[in-house]
């Protein structure tokens, strides 16, 4: 009798643990495919471009973020290669002058103020510190967003427990604060929020 009771109890616990650690993280996020598959490696390695060639600053120091279609059109007004992706880029976006509706992995919410110029220009932080080797990736993984909060999965990071994560994994406030503490960089609430 005791055994049966214990077994049931343990079974309940096991099911819950499985649900919590395996099913829940999957159920909480939804995957969406990017409109185009962009090959960063082809640009940064093969074409030897800098991050800032496309992800540039405006005159006032604000970060322009994902490049506009005009930027792509500078090189790709006609297809340079033969990939399906490039054909799609030219036909569907560049020719009609339509912006590509990219889904930004590292998009922070409106209440977060992140100044790229302050980090990269003044503090000389490398792009890779936060974005990892995204600049060398060959393909775009699907964008994932949280069903409750709407945040991109990259903000929490890939691991649900947030344990043993790499420096570039996770963009929660704790992650920012950790790096700031490490470098002794003072930024009050006001430094990063608006």
């Amino acid at each position, binding site marked *: 009798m005791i055994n049966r009771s214990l077994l049931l109890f343990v079974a309940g616990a096991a099911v819950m643990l499985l649900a919590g650690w395996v099913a829940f993280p999957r159920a909480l996020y939804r995957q969406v495919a990017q409109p185009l598959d962009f090959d960063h490696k082809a640009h940064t390695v093969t074409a030897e471009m800098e991050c800032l060639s496309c992800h540039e600053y405006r005159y*006032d120091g604000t970060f322009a973020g994902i490049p506009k279609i005009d930027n792509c059109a500078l090189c790709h007004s006609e297809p340079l290669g033969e990939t399906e992706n490039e054909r799609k880029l030219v036909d569907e976006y560049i020719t009609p002058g339509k912006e590509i509706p990219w889904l930004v992995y590292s998009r922070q919410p409106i209440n977060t103020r992140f100044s790229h*110029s302050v980090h990269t220009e003044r503090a000389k*932080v490398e792009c890779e510190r936060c974005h990892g080797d995204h600049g060398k990736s060959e393909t775009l993984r699907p964008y994932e967003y949280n069903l409750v909060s709407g945040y991109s999965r990259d903000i929490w990071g890939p691991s649900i427990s947030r344990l043993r994560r790499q420096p570039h994994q996770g963009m929660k406030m704790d992650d920012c604060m950790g790096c700031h503490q*490490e*470098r002794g960089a*003072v930024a*009050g*609430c*006001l430094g990063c929020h608006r």
Partner: protein
Amino acid sequence: MMANTPNTATAAPVQENRKIRRFGMVINLDNCTGCGSCMMTCAVENNCAPAKEKITDRTGITLMRVFPVNDRQPMPVRQAGFVPMPCMQCEDPPCELVCPQQAVELDPLSGIVDQMPQRCFGCRYCMAACPYHARYFNWYDPEWPKGMEQTLNPAVAPRMRGVVEKCDFCHGRLHLAEDQAAIDGNDDYTYTPACVEACPTQAIVFGDLNDEDSEVSQLAKDPNSFRFLAKLGTEPKVYYYSEHEWRRNLAERDMNGNASRNEGKEA
């Protein structure tokens, strides 16, 4: 909270040359005509929504508010004027002390008392603690007429219902100045809050009080300058200026007692 020496030697020495500023204001009350330009531009800059029908002067959000004041003499010898009141940005803020979850902070780099609506859970203790009534609560969600949300300023996040907000010296503009400085490679920036820029009679002088040579520092030391409720010891960084004694007398409550104070107000 002030910077200690960085504990990791390898880290870039980000902190060393950061300038510590103490932004402050001197408002010349003799120049204020009570037009309200500062209030309007403040609302635009900081994404305040137009008032709903139910909102009153006691539930509205006017991060910069102009109060009509007078010397409490009978008409028609009464003298009257206006007092624009943003947050006083106290150096020893009574609101920061009371916030249970660190949603209020005296910014170490700028001296701005700063309220994080995203951290705030709306207990309103800070509102009770502020003697200047500089804090405002979002009694409802903000709502813009259809399409008008397009006019929102991206440098400032809109607030949601149930949180406190206040003037933070147009921090969105401070951020832009900071970005520009980072690109320019210097740390020697200043900026102009919206109300200062808008005042048609240039009644507001803004700047770094730590900078001895700035106009604001000089004006703050003028014998005609004063601060409201200075005796409470909150050390406001917003100063007022007037060449008229009755206006300077507004600084403290009348210690001689004035029983006719609220006479005729509620009949």
